[in-house]
């Protein structure tokens, strides 16, 4: 095919894809800065005539007249951040140590354990939630950020082990042999040689674990009941029940909940594709 014709055809195909990606997002953002009367008007106001950042100010810098809803979002955003960061830290620390042992050290049942751990990654949350719920109520952990951190580890930890395993596999064994000849023992080799050069793997694993924890909905829905532990997805979902009440506020909550994962993914985009290929799933 002639070059200009080929380019024209490509552009004709690219445009609808780009529109399909951005139009819903654009509408989400526009809705978040529209006044209520403009949102509830027919025909639709595509471009708000009086754009307002009131919803954002209400959530990020609450004042005297701030609504209950805005306060809820503010607290739940904080809960989400607390839970997702804690889960990421624990899964990364424990997961990378376990992963290293499973990949590089020889001991009985190693293979079985590796496959078993990878298998638990696939257990759906719904199959774990009833016993975890009973456990939470019995030990007074129901509706606490702690129970979310504990239960999120059920997917975050195997996930971290899996991703780090894919990474450790790419580090040449000769590097370790060299370190041991120089007199390092296993632990020293791990902490002085392996972990420092694993920084990219740790970043990418941490990113995926954080995104997954930030996205999690089901455990949070079942195991929390008030703002003291609710995460931002639960706050947003509850809103949809009592609809049209405050669409602008809800869309603002959505934008704010989407900003951290979107920004992080764009910054670390080169890790995303390699991570996806290694079997990272965010839901």
């Amino acid at each position, binding site marked *: 095919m002639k070059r200009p014709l080929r380019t024209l055809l490509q*552009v004709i*195909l*690219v445009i609808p894809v780009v529109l*399909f*990606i*951005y139009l819903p*997002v654009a*509408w*989400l953002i526009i*809705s978040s800065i529209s006044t209520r009367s403009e949102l*509830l008007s*027919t*025909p*639709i106001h*595509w471009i708000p005539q009086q754009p307002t950042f009131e919803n954002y100010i209400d959530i990020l810098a609450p004042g005297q007249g701030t609504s209950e809803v805005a306060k809820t979002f503010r607290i739940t955003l904080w809960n989400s951040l607390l839970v997702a960061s804690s889960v990421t830290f624990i899964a990364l620390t*424990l997961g990378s140590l*376990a992963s290293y*042992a*499973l990949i590089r*050290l020889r*001991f*009985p049942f*190693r293979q079985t354990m*590796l496959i078993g*751990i*990878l298998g*638990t990654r*696939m*257990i*759906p949350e*719904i199959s*774990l939630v*009833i*016993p975890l719920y009973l456990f939470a109520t019995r030990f007074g952990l129901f509706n606490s950020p702690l129970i979310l951190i504990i239960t999120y*580890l*059920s997917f975050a*930890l195997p996930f971290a*082990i899996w991703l780090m*395993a894919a990474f450790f*596999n790419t580090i040449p064994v000769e590097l370790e042999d060299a370190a041991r000849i120089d007199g390092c023992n*296993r632990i020293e080799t791990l902490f002085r040689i392996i972990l420092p050069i694993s920084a990219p793997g740790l970043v990418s694993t941490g990113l995926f674990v954080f*995104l997954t924890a*930030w*996205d999690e909905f*089901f455990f949070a829905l079942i195991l929390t009941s008030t703002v003291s532990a609710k995460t931002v*997805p639960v706050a947003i*979902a509850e809103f*949809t029940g009592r609809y*049209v009440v405050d669409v602008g506020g809800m869309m603002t909550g*959505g934008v704010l*909940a*989407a900003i951290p994962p*979107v920004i*992080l993914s*764009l910054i670390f*985009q080169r890790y*995303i*594709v390699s991570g*996806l*290929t290694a079997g990272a799933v965010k839901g």
Partner: protein
Amino acid sequence: MQRKLSLNQQDALIGFGLILPSLLIILGISLQPILSTLFLSFFESSRGINVERIFVGLGNYTALLSDPVFWVTIGRTMYFTLVSVGLELVLGLAIAQLIHSHPPGWQFLRTSLIIPWAVPTIVNGTMWRWIYNADYGALNGLLVQLGIIDKYIPWLTKPDVAMNLVILADIWHSVPFIALILQAALATLPADLEEAAAVDGANALQRFLLIRLPLLRPAILVALVIRTVEAFRVFDIIYVITNGGPAFGTVTISYLTYLETFSFGNLGRGSALSFLISLFTLIMAFIYIRVLYRPEETQ
């Protein structure tokens, strides 16, 4: 006298030490609960699990398997899974090919794909629910202005329409995932094979079907298995967009489990259902591990 451990014994000891914390956590929050779920599935406890617990053996399972609601729900879940994953695969492959052909702005397109993938599922659902809104939604607004429909349609009041619109929202979120995986795989394919085939007179379609597609098979399989497992247990997006409605018309197997357990209080029956979901997932997981995990890499 203390015996000096051999290097291998040292390794084994260190290995167990490094793995122990993770192992204990996984045993405690994954293995114990799943076994506990299996145990609960043999009981009936309609008056609350701590009040009364009657052993019914496989009763919950036989009751489920003879309940038409269960089969309707399975059928609906299969519909959701096949249609959404099927369309996602076709569109994902098409977009991956498009990116691979390096059109103007292909890097922008590749970066853009990350956005729908990164938007949290609940935000995605909320956004689409607002777009589908009967009175003020953007879908109605757009279609009326384009002259495709002449009055606003309450989209989410018909079960099959609602299900297809949930699928559309899921496609928006998941096509980028498949497209990103496949374009990464395409980028690693050797170009000389297709060039040689072209020299030998193979046309573009033959090159695609006979050379490119077989080479992409592993990547396609990975994407397919991951998405099938996810789609089969879909919950979040349905919870937000339709709440299982209208008239339970979008209740999938996970949603039914949720309703049985947390709305109707049938913990035993809910456990049986969720164990069946696990069983399906484990079968898929087996395929997944066989596809993704190559033991020779760790030797």
